[in-house]
């Protein structure tokens, strides 16, 4: 039934696909995470100037499919002199698309820190810089890790679309094997398992990070509703 020998024979294609998926996703996610931070910082630092453009960018990412963006970059780019390799178009597409979502995640993290904390910090004479690095960022980090992990997982799954603009990623190479060997189940299931492994790794990583950030919380800081626990 399930032909393992077939997978062994085609291992080179599968490994090549795995490598391409991994590095393209890694770079794409890196762009998404950093560009998203820049967008969120712009929006928060001067809402009047950047609020509207960033909000539009976010809506654009949420409202259009990644596939359209990839086609725009790869097929539409050349007509304005933008010649990208399929791989680079993939990284750019995933990065630009993910940045819109990450900008919202960062913003949500900052917004959910009660204003009273900052007012209290100012009252106590804590400088804005210290308030940012010691009060806002540590709490925000903890808040954004779960949705951030989720978003990375979504981006890895959406990265399968780069196979449509001819990148030899896991999905494309699986289809190549299907077409060469006329076996459907083995290549696709093997590749599905590999995606699932990557995703599981990210999920575990996010969970570990979440735990570490929670433990790093200073002892004397007592969050609302946790007082009984902290003193017990």
């Amino acid at each position, binding site marked *: 039934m399930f032909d393992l020998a077939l997978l062994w024979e085609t291992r080179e294609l599968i490994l090549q696909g795995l490598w391409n998926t991994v590095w393209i996703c890694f770079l794409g996610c890196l762009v998404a995470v950093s560009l998203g931070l820049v967008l969120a910082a712009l929006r928060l630092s001067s809402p009047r100037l950047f609020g509207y453009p960033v909000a539009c960018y976010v809506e654009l990412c949420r409202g259009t499919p990644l596939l359209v963006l990839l086609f725009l970059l790869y097929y539409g780019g050349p007509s304005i002199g933008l010649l990208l390799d399929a791989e680079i178009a993939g990284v750019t597409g995933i990065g630009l698309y993910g940045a819109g979502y990450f900008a919202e995640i960062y913003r949500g993290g900052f917004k959910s820190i009660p204003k009273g904390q900052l007012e209290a910090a100012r009252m106590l004479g804590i400088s804005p810089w210290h308030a940012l690095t010691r009060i806002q960022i540590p709490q925000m980090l903890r808040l954004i890790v779960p949705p951030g992990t989720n978003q990375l997982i979504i981006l890895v799954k959406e990265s399968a679309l780069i196979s*449509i603009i001819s990148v030899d990623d896991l999905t494309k190479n699986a289809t190549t094997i299907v077409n060469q060997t006329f076996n459907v189940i083995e290549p696709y299931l093997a590749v599905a398992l590999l995606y699932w492994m990557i995703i599981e790794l990210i999920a575990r990583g996010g969970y570990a990070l979440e735990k570490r950030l929670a433990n790093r919380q200073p002892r004397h800081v007592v969050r609302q509703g946790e007082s009984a626990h902290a003193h017990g």
Partner: protein
Amino acid sequence: MLEILLNHYPVLIKGLTTTLVVSLSAIALGLVFGMLLAFGLTSRYRWVRWPCGLYRSFWRGTPILLQLLLVYYLLPEIGIEVAPITAAILTLTLNTTAFQSEIFRSGIAHIPTGQIEAARMAGISAWQTRRRIVMPQVFRLTLPPLTNEIITILKNSSLISVIAVTELMRVSEQIASRTFQPLETYLAAAVLYLAVNLLLARISAHLERRMTGGLATE
């Protein structure tokens, strides 16, 4: 871009209609199966919960493009010939069922257990409790995440163009290759997707405002 929209609007609208039909059928079927799966996931019996969990794991944990290819190529292998559009609706349904079940599961978890206990006490059967008490509230509670899921499915439906369903993306590809204006064409497609999704978000926000009256509070 405007030129493309003006010159090719009949085919573009046709493509958009197919996109909407496919996505909304999948969403509607997913509502039913997703709710059933959610009840399966919260079942008292382990032998029900376990397979439901496995199903959810697979369909949420693998790329939807891969799922589409698997369904599309696998069905003929086992002797079932289906049109590409059927395979597309089937895949999107199987996928969204898993995501919607998770949405409903968290919705069910938010309903105070006291209500269900009270229904039991009042002699209302388990099925009637689900249908009359749990489900109406779950729909209201889960409207925002449900809207996100509808938008996600609409966006994901663009990839069924790879199995030659002539929806919006496929139509755009055809126009792009005929007019040699890929940039303008795909921008037009982006605008159409964006317009539909923004409209959906608006409708959902409106519904949410209207339905918040009479919501169960803890």
